[in-house]
């Protein structure tokens, strides 16, 4: 079946450094991907999305890279801030959205 997962369950970075969160997916038919951020006690919040006809998309302080050859996504956060501490999910859309297990990002002041 389909699966979307994340490489590392936890990641700690120093404030001001760049963060890279990785994600792998199994369904070659997935053509749309979204990264969500979930803070404690809240629902997931949209960060950025990318379609399969693109390999890179940039937002404010965030960049998503898509490598369809190896079925891999990454979320890059520039100049990580304490407010970036959260669990990050990548979701892939085949017939429905599948959430991975998430990476918990901790920003060290």
């Amino acid at each position, binding site marked *: 079946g389909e699966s979307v997962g994340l490489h590392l369950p936890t990641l700690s970075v120093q404030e001001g450094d760049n963060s890279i969160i990785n994600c792998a997916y199994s369904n070659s038919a997935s053509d749309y991907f979204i990264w969500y951020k979930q803070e404690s006690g809240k629902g*997931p919040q949209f960060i950025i999305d990318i379609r399969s006809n693109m390999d890179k998309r940039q937002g404010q302080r965030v960049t998503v890279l898509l490598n369809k050859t190896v079925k891999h996504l990454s979320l890059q956060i520039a100049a990580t801030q304490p407010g970036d501490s959260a669990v990050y999910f990548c979701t892939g859309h085949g017939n429905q959205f599948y959430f991975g297990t998430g990476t918990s990002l901790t920003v060290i002041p």
Partner: protein
Amino acid sequence: EAGVAQSPRYKIIEKRQSVAFWCNPISGHATLYWYQQILGQGPKLLIQFQNNGVVDDSQLPKDRFSAERLKGVDSTLKIQPAKLEDSAVYLCASSFRLAGVRTDTQYFGPGTRLTVL
């Protein structure tokens, strides 16, 4: 713009009791989703509505879970009877169009944290 509203925020019940959760999506959003998120895991889709029709309920445990969206706006999710393993956060989300169009963003509510004792 108001976000997705859910109530209650917290609920504690004993096993075999019944419980219901309510969701009010963002105005104008035709698609509504219910997710179950067990501690330490990602959200798992339980049911998806397009207006008041069910699009996907393949992962809904239909022997104990039910959901409805009678007028295509608000929705309720019910568990009867509850089991210990139902302890989780139940998230409601909505999007403007059917997710299959592949451009939709889901907007999530804060969730209802259910504890079954």
